[in-house]
């Protein structure tokens, strides 16, 4: 056996370890063929392109059959929860938004709902702020599902859906940029409301967006729904029934693929979801194809909610988007200037030129923040991946005492083993893609 620069081997106490770096597979295959044991352990990831970010899967294989899967996580751990204990309650949104980077609005909303529960101002949030939150969450659900569908299809070998999915996602992200100034990680939802009102003409733009999205979604539908190859790769794959889901605490599309219509938007409404008409989509196949169909159909439901939100936005034009209590509400909103979104010049003129009291108020609230009465609260929202909840503990200070996020990705990723063991190696990819884990959320 000659030295192979692409597939070097070394002997360890655990047996021979092959490091494959590309290139010559023939020599590797012939070498493995000489091994006495059938059982092979393969490290998939953390840099494997189809593991949704830095996920490591330790696979035990017998031939092409998977006998054991052990997911290894933690490669993207950034200590967000710990960091938030050192910042004010408002600054925390900037951290929370960065956890699950595909659904920033949901992170912010869960965090802010928990703060509002602690403050006891849940019912004081202006109606328009809640409508904007719902609008943003549903737009975000679309952009997140688009990545799930696009990358999921790409990982199973279909290139086309990715192009369509990212075209739709771009349209949504552009809208985010127009509303918040940022495409991702917007820190737009703030304790007490939202950062600022929608810019002028946004409702019209949203109507056009909804029309375009509704038309464009058909492209992916035509490509994948009922496609023989796609169904062969997804039907009966990654099976997890209702008992498995409840045992493992699984929520979101994976749970709904077992036929249980559990959606927090319907069951435990927040942000006024009880005032919107929409359907909870389920499937009864418990497999990857079912989850795919659920995500596809949820896009249309999100559009329905957005349309209703637009009507409500028109009706509440000019109403406040931040709680009336000036001891909590952020003193200034941003304004669009010639050089982009930035400080409101009117506000600066007021605090620097005309009102000393305004300056003091601004300074106190921005540097010190507000105090939150001691206690704990748990607020959950239905994120694209399942129940996303914030558990906050306050000691009565200006900073959280403890922030914990119940991340659906983190929880649901546990089911990889249950979904994949006994199946083929190639089907792991489909199973993981159907869970749609985002490693930023898993590791926080």
């Amino acid at each position, binding site marked *: 056996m000659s030295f192979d620069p692409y597939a070097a081997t070394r002997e360890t106490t655990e047996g021979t370890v092959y490091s494959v770096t590309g290139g010559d597979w023939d020599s590797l295959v012939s070498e493995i063929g000489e091994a006495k044991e059938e059982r092979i352990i393969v490290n998939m990831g953390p840099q494997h392109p189809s593991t949704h970010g830095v996920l490591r899967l330790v696979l035990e294989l017998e031939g092409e059959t998977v006998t054991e899967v052990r997911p290894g996580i933690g490669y993207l751990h950034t200590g967000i929860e710990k960091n938030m*204990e050192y910042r*004010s309650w408002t600054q925390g949104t900037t951290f929370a938004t960065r956890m699950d980077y595909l659904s920033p609005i949901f992170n912010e909303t869960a965090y802010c709902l928990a703060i509002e529960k602690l403050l006891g101002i849940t019912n004081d949030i202006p109606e328009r702020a809640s409508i904007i939150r719902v609008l943003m969450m549903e737009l975000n659900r679309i952009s997140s599902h688009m990545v799930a569908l696009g990358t999921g299809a790409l990982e199973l070998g279909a290139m086309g859906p990715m192009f369509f999915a990212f075209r739709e996602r771009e349209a949504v992200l552009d809208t985010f940029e127009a509303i918040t100034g940022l495409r991702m990680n917007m820190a737009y939802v703030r304790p007490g409301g939202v950062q600022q009102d929608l810019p002028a003409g946004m409702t019209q733009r949203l109507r056009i967006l909804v029309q375009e999205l509704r038309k464009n979604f058909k492209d992916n539908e035509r490509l994948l729904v009922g496609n023989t190859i796609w169904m062969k790769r997804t039907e009966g794959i990654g099976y997890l029934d209702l008992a498995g889901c409840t*045992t493992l605490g699984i929520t979101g599309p994976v749970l709904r693929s077992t036929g249980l219509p559990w959606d927090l938007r319907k069951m435990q409404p927040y942000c006024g979801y009880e005032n919107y008409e929409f359907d909870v989509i389920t499937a009864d196949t418990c497999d990857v194809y079912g989850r795919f169909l659920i995500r596809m159909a949820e896009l249309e439901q999100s559009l329905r909610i957005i349309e209703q939100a637009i009507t409500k936005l028109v009706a509440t034009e000019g109403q406040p988007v931040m709680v009336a209590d000036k001891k909590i509400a952020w003193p200034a909103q941003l304004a669009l200037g010639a050089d982009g979104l930035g400080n409101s010049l009117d506000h600066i003129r007021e605090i620097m030129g005309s009102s000393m009291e305004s300056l003091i108020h601004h300074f106190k609230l921005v540097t010190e923040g507000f105090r939150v009465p001691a206690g*704990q609260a*748990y607020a959950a929202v239905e994120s694209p991946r399942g129940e996303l909840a914030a558990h906050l503990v306050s000691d009565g200070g200006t900073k959280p005492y*403890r922030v914990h996020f119940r991340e659906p990705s983190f*929880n649901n*990723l546990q089911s990889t083993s249950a979904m994949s063991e006994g199946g083929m190696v190639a089907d792991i990819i489909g199973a993981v893609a159907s869970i749609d884990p985002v490693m930023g959320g898993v590791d926080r």
Partner: protein
Amino acid sequence: MSEAQEGMFGVSGTGDTSGYGGLVRTVTNPGSTERPYGGYFDQVADDLERAYPDFADAITKVVVDRGELTLHIKKERLVEVAKTLRDKLLFEMCMGVSGVHYPERAGCELVAVYPLLSMTKNQRVRLEVCTSEVDPHIPSLVEVYGGNNWHERETFDMFGIIFDGHPGLTRILMPDDWDGHPQRKDYPLGGIAVEYKGATTPAPQNRRSYK
């Protein structure tokens, strides 16, 4: 439950000249709640009392605060109570476990919080268990709620709470050879001071900040 906090700023001994250094602020946490609890909470408590005769002994405190029901449980009874809640009261899902560290609560420094969900009845309840830093053991709930596997590993990793009976209690987010448990209050945030044009901004944990 009251605790006192001294001073107004986060860091002591930095020459706080604001005059607020001598301020003593009392923090009052929501205490034990008397019946009626309101909402479905009375029903949950009644059902649990009926299904679990040792209720009075196992549950040290019932707190209803901000529309949420919290049952404080003696740690050695945790598994029994959880099993009863799951099998008899249909709280079929546990949404994980969240640790909290209260260094000033002697003998009860480390707290584990379990949010339970009943999809059948659309209800939520929270369990709380505490243990001491010296003997940080809490029975594992993995045999009752399998999904708590990773959550308990995370809480072990971050707080050093040892969940007895867990099938493989190893670190999950931090590297295996890491020292200490990062989310304990005595563990520093870390970070380095930043210098810009000669002026230095201290790392977040060393900044003078409001309490």
